[in-house]
Each structure stands twice: as structure tokens, then as C-alpha cells.
């Protein structure tokens, strides 16, 4: 009697494991983002912060990698580039329950005329298991950044400018020091 119960339990356990394996093999993979498109107007040299909501419309937890593409890439920083997101409960409905907010920081360079930069921020996940042709899938939110001419002089000042300024100051200080010590530089024809 006891042996029969153990056998039945073993069979049930094997079936359960097989069922879980089948479910996990056939789990759908999905990624979502909000907003899907953003148009930003920002002054050159100023910092603009954008918050994206990234969520998982698939069946299992998914590691999602964020990256930039396009001309916005040179001045865009993503706060967290890899996030693990739990799936949304089914049936899917708003508001998003398990999504993760990702902060994106943009600091476009100073400009003297209106300049438009475009690109996407991609949120991509993958569960490929070493097949011949594995897939990564995701969503891309479109970004358009309209950079207006800078009002502040400092928006045009880059690190290079500061470095040159510092070198000139050191040379000037050296010149004054030498002069104080009684040494003179004279240009003669």
C-alpha cells in the first residue's frame, strides 16, 4: 500500500516536472515600452531627463538590455543598461504592474541654430539556447531631440576649452613669477 502511494507520487512528480519543462519551452517572449515615441525640445548644453517604462509581455522573467541607436547616441546616457523584468499578469491590462522605470539623460551640445537629432532607445531580450539561429527580440522607442540655440555662454565651453584656458593661466603665472624674480623676456629686432 505504502509502496503504491510512493509510486503514484513519483509518477505525479515526473508528470509535473515534464509539464513545467513543456511550459517553459513554449513560453512566449515579449517586451514593451512606453512612451513609444518622444519629441523633446531642449536648449543646447542643458540636461534633459526622460523616464521610460519597460515591461515584459512574455511568460517568464526576462533580462532586458537597453541601448541607443542613431545620432542621439553621442549625448545620451541610460542609467541602467540591464534589467530583469517579471512578466505582466494575464490578461494583460493597464496600468503596468511589473514594469521597470529607466531614466535616460540627454545633454546635447551647444548650437547656434536649431538642430534635430533622431534615434531610438532599444529594449531587447533574448532566451536563445544555442540553436543554429537564435533570436533576440525587443521594442524600440523613437526619440527626436530638437536642440535650440544656447542662451548661456557656458553651453559652448567644452573640456578642451577649459584645458587650454588652464594652460594659458599657468603660462601667465609662470611669466609673472619669473618677472618678479627679476628675469625679463625681451624681443629684439
Amino acid at each position, binding site marked *: 500500500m505504502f509502496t503504491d502511494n510512493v509510486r503514484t507520487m513519483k509518477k505525479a512528480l515526473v508528470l509535473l516536472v515534464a509539464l513545467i519543462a513543456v511550459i517553459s519551452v513554449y*513560453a512566449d517572449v515579449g517586451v514593451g515600452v512606453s512612451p513609444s515615441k518622444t519629441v523633446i525640445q531642449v536648449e543646447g548644453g542643458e540636461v534633459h531627463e526622460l523616464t521610460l517604462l519597460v515591461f515584459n509581455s512574455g511568460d517568464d522573467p526576462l533580462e532586458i538590455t537597453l541601448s541607443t541607436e542613431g545620432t542621439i547616441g553621442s549625448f545620451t546616457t541610460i542609467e541602467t543598461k540591464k534589467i530583469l523584468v517579471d512578466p505582466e499578469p494575464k490578461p494583460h491590462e493597464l496600468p503596468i504592474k511589473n514594469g521597470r522605470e529607466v531614466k535616460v539623460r540627454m545633454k546635447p551640445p551647444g548650437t547656434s541654430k536649431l538642430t534635430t537629432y533622431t534615434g531610438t532607445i532599444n529594449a531587447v531580450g533574448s532566451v536563445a539556447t544555442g540553436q*543554429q539561429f537564435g533570436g533576440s527580440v525587443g521594442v524600440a522607442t523613437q526619440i527626436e531631440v530638437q536642440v535650440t540655440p544656447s542662451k548661456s555662454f557656458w553651453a559652448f565651453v567644452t573640456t578642451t576649452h577649459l584645458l587650454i584656458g588652464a594652460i594659458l593661466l599657468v603660462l601667465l603665472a609662470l611669466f609673472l613669477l619669473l618677472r618678479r624674480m627679476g628675469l625679463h623676456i625681451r624681443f629684439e629686432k
Partner: protein
Amino acid sequence: MKRGVSNAVVLLFILAILSVLIFRDSFTGGDSFSGGITGAASSQISNLTATVQTFIACTWSNDALNVAFGITLNPGSTGYNGTLNYNATLGNGTVTNGTMYNATLDTLSNVNVNITINGSNLTSGANRIGIQNVSWASNYTAFVNASNTTQMTYANATRINETTNAYPVAVNLSSGATAHFRFFLDIPSGQVAASYTGNYTMLCSQTT
């Protein structure tokens, strides 16, 4: 005396420049994450504004992320099918000639999307099969009617590139709709015998 005053003036000038450089960030907000002043209160009578946020969410069948072309592939042969190109299993276990590779625009989405594709070469050590030998055909492109699945054949397939392909796998997919697609592989003549692996990336983005 006059010389001393002149030196002091020059030194003061230098100090002034240095202090401006040091405190520059304080004046402009510098690299502060929060930027400048925001959230200024305002009052206006008669205007009501409401901004509805846009959402997109695409979901792929698990099979679409694990594509195989079989293990007996001959060099110089073209149009090998993905193993699940014609192998869809219905809920009752019936196998049809439908494809198991698909992507659905989730009903959470409130804008239409395009689905684009790019990929990287299939490699085995130093040997490679160029990604352009892999192609796809779908039922949701700009030039195929969504209901016309007979167009999803090797003859109508588009090659995958390393950069995003000019022709999306799905065009203007609406909320709740599913794009089905098939994959095909060509093996160049003289290809070295080995097990090759590669990958592709599909991206959903709002239709512009």
C-alpha cells in the same frame, strides 16, 4: 609702488577667472541629473489638456527565438526551411503546414508598429556562412496581403542583412494582430562542414 599695484591687479584678474571656472557648475546646473528649474506653477482659465501615453508591446513565439534548419545540409543547396516553417501544431495536436514563427502586437499597444530585422553571420570557429544566406518571408509586409499566406515561400523571401533591412518583417501591424513568418537558409558551394550558429534581432517600433 606702481609696479606692485599692477601685479596685484593681474593676480586678482587671474583669481577671478579661476573662481568663475571652479564655480561654473553652480551657475549653470552643470551635470546635475535634474537639470534646470522645472515644475513652475501656472494658472490658466478655460484650457484643459490631457496627454494619453503611447504603449507598444510585442510578443514572439518561443520557437521564433530558437530557429534550426536541420543537421543534413549540403553545400551549394538553397532554400532549406526552418524546421518549424511548415509544422504548426493546433490545440488538438493536429499538425498543419502553418509556421510556428510569429510575433503579435499585444493588446496593451495603442499605436501600430513595424517589425524590422537584422542579424549576424553564422559561424563555426573561423568558418562562416554570411547572414545574407538567411532569408525570411512573412504574411504582413507592405506588398503581401495579411490573409495570403501562400506568399510566405522561399521564392518571395528577403535576405537578412547585418544592418536593419529596408523591408520590415511586418508593416503597420495593429493591436492584437499577429505576423507569421518563415526562415530559409542557403548553403554556399564549398562550405566547410561544421555546426554553425548565428543570431538575429527583431525590433518593434511605432509606425511613423
